[in-house]
C-alpha cells in the first residue's frame, strides 16, 4: 500500500525537462489566434484628478500644486536629464570630465493622456520575399480608431531650464560618476531647484526693462509646452522582428 502510494506520487513528479526551442514562423502559423484585446489607458500626471477631495469640474486637468497637492513642493514635479559628461568647471567653461554637473530640467511636468481604445492583436503579415515567394511573418498589431481619439489635456511642462549642481562631480576612468565631496544637501542638486519669478516694476536706463507681471509665480526657465486636444489617429501599426532574411538592414 505504501509502496503503491510512493509509486503514484513518483509518477506525478517525473515530468520531463526540455530546453526551450525557437518556434519557427510556420509553427506560429499553426496556432489559432483568438481575437485580441482592446485596451484603454489613462495617464494622469501631476494633475488634479477625480479621486482628489478638492476636485471640481472647474479644476480638472489643472496642475496639482495647491496646499496638500502632489506638487505643492514644486521641486518634486520635475523631470531632469543629465547628458553623459556635461560639466561646467570653476572658470565657467564647459568640461567633459569634472565640474558642476549640468541638468536639463522640465519643470511642472504634467498632463492627462487618455487612450480610449488601443487594439492589441496578433496577426500574420503576408509578404513576398526576394524570390517572389509568399511568406508569412507573425506580427503584433496595434490599432487606433478615428472615432475614439486619444484625449490629451494640458500635457507638457511649465518651463524648461538648464540647471547645475552647486557642488562638483567628476567622471572616473571607468566611466562612473562620483561627487567630489560628500554631504551635498537637497537644495544643492540642480534638478531640485525650484526658483520662481517675482513681479518686476518698469525701469528705464542702461539696464531698463518694461514691467514683468506675466511670469510671476512661474518657475524659472525659457520655454513651456502645453498640448490640448483630441488626437485623431486612425490605422494599424504592425510590429515584428526584423530579421536579415526579410530585410538586409537588420
Amino acid at each position: 500500500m505504501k509502496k503503491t502510494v510512493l509509486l503514484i506520487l513518483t509518477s506525478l513528479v517525473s515530468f520531463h525537462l526540455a530546453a526551450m526551442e525557437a518556434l519557427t514562423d510556420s509553427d506560429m502559423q499553426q496556432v489559432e489566434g483568438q481575437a485580441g484585446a482592446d485596451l484603454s489607458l489613462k495617464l494622469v500626471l501631476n494633475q488634479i484628478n477625480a479621486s482628489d477631495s478638492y476636485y471640481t469640474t472647474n479644476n480638472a486637468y489643472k496642475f496639482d500644486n495647491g496646499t496638500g497637492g502632489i506638487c505643492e513642493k514644486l521641486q518634486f514635479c520635475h523631470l531632469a536629464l543629465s547628458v553623459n559628461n556635461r560639466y561646467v568647471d570653476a572658470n565657467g567653461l564647459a568640461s567633459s570630465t569634472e565640474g558642476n554637473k549640468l541638468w536639463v530640467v522640465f519643470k511642472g511636468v504634467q498632463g492627462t493622456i487618455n487612450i480610449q481604445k488601443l487594439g492589441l492583436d496578433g496577426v500574420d503579415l503576408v509578404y513576398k520575399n526576394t524570390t517572389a515567394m509568399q511568406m508569412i511573418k507573425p506580427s503584433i498589431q496595434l490599432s487606433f480608431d478615428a472615432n475614439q481619439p486619444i484625449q490629451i489635456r494640458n500635457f507638457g511642462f511649465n518651463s524648461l531650464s538648464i540647471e547645475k549642481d552647486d557642488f562638483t562631480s567628476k567622471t572616473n576612468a571607468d566611466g562612473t560618476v562620483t561627487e567630489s565631496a560628500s554631504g551635498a544637501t537637497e537644495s544643492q542638486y540642480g534638478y531640485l531647484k525650484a526658483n520662481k519669478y517675482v513681479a518686476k516694476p518698469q525701469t528705464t536706463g542702461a539696464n531698463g526693462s518694461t514691467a514683468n507681471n506675466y511670469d510671476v509665480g512661474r518657475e524659472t526657465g525659457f520655454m513651456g509646452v502645453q498640448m490640448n486636444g483630441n488626437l485623431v489617429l486612425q490605422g494599424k501599426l504592425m510590429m515584428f522582428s526584423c530579421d536579415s532574411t526579410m530585410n538586409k538592414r537588420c
Partner: protein
Amino acid sequence: MTTLNYTVKFHKTVLVSFIGLCLSQSCFALEEMSDEKLSDTTGEGIALLPRDTYMVFQGAGVNQTQDTVLTNRSLDTGYIYYVPVGPLSSIVQDTNKDGVVNASDHSVGKADLYLYGLALSKNASNNANLRLDAGSTNGVANAAIKSWGTATNPWIFNVKTDLNVPDFGAGAGSVTYLNFEAPLYENLYSFAADKKTVTTSAFVNDVGGEDAYNLKLAFWADGFVRDQSKADKDPNQFNLGEGFSTTATGRANRIRLQGIFNGFGLNGSKIQLFQTLGGATNTGGMSAFYNNTLGLAGVIRLNSGDGSKLLGTSTANSWTAPANLMSHVFRISTQECGVGNLNGCTTPAAQDILSTPAINGGTAPTFSDKEGIYIYNLNTNLVLGSLYQPLILGSDGTNFSIELARIPNKESIYKKIYTDYTGADTSYTGSTCNVYNCGASSIAGYQGSSATHSSISIGTVYSTDAGKTLLADKSAGAVGVSFNQLNNATSSNAQNNLGSALIDGMLIQHMKITTKGL
C-alpha cells in the same frame, strides 16, 4: 465541530522521499552573459509598419465619427502651445541701440505660439488648401496612408555597432548606437548616357508602399505679440502698443498662417544616438568637450521627387504653367476668407484680429485658397553629422548650445567627408545627398544613406553628371517659388514666377548654435 480524519497514514520516510523527489529537479541558475557572447548575438531590432493610417489633432471635445473627422476642418483646433517663459533682456528692449531703455525705444513683446491642427496623411487630391482629404472608399479614408513602407522595407528601430570608427585623436574605436530609420528610398531614377536625362521607373521593391512617397503634412498657427507687463489672461495681454511700455487696442498683434506640404516622402531618413568617442584636446580648433558624451547624427530627407521635367512652356506672348503643380508643393498662406476678400471667398466671416480658439474658443478659420507663398517640388536632404562628426549638446550653466563637432585634421576622417568633384582622387569618399542618390548603397534596389553633404532644391533642377551635383534650371519655363498660385500668362513668363532655387553640396565643417541671455 469538524475534525479531519485521514484514511491514509504516511510514514515519515515516504513523505521525506516525496519532498526529496519534488526538489531533486535540475535547476539552472541564470548566468551572466559576457560581452563577447552578447556581441555575437545578432541584433534584429523591431520593424514598424503603419498601415491605413492618418492623424489630425482636433479640438478637445466629444468623440466624432470618422466621416465628421474627414470632412469638418473647422474642428482642427487641437493645439501645441509654446509658452514664452522668462523676462525680456534689456539688450533686446533697447531697439534704437542708444544704450538706454526708455520711451525713445519701440515696444518689444514676447511671442506666444499656438500650433493647431497638425495633420499627417496621404495627399489624395493635390489640394493645397485642404489639411486632410475628405471621403472614404470601402470604409478606408482616402487620406489614409495605405502602407508607410512595406514588410520588407519597414521603419526600423534597432541597435547597431560600427567597428573601427576613427576618434577625435589618433585612435579608433567601436561605436554602438541606437538607430531609428524610416523606410529606404527606392532607387527610382536612372540617367541616360548623356548623364542628364532622367527616367523615373515604376516601383518594383516598394509596390504597395507608394503612399510613403506622397504624404501630406499640414498645420495652421497663431502667433501673438505678448505684453509681458500684463499678467496672464489680462484683457490687454496682446494689446502691446508701438512705443516702450504702451498699450493700444486694435493693433494686429497676431500672425495667422497655414502650412500645407503636399506630395513628399520621408524615405531614407534616419537618426542615430550614441556616446561619442574620445581623443579630442583643446588644440587644433577641437574641444575636449566633444569627448564621451551624448552624440547625435542623422539624415533628414524630405523629397518631392525628380524636378528636371517640371517645365512650363514659354513663347513671346504666352506662358503655360507645368501641369499638376499642386501635387508637390509646400504652401504657406495667411489670408482668411471673409468680407472683401479679393480672391472671392467672402464667406464665412473672418475671425477677430486677436482671436484664437485656444483662448476664445470657436472653430478653426477658413483660409483663402489662392494666396500665399508656393514652394514647388521641394527636395530637402540634410546630413547632420556622422558617428565621427557628432552633434552634441552643451551648456555654460544657464544657456545651452547645440554643436556639430569640427571635422578633425585627421586623414581617416576628412577623407570620408570631403569630395573630390573631379573624381581624380577616389580616396575622398564624401558625396552629396539629393533626390537621385544619397551615397553608396549596400542594398540592391534602394538608395544609400551614407552621403556627407546636404542639398536643398526648389522647383526645376537638373543634373549634368548623373545625379552627383545639381544645377538650377534658368530657362523661361523653370518654376520654383511663386507668390500666389502660378497661372498661365499672356506674356513670356508669369509675373509672380520667381524661378527655381538650389543649395547644393553643403558641408557643415563646424557649427555651434548658442542661446543668449537666458
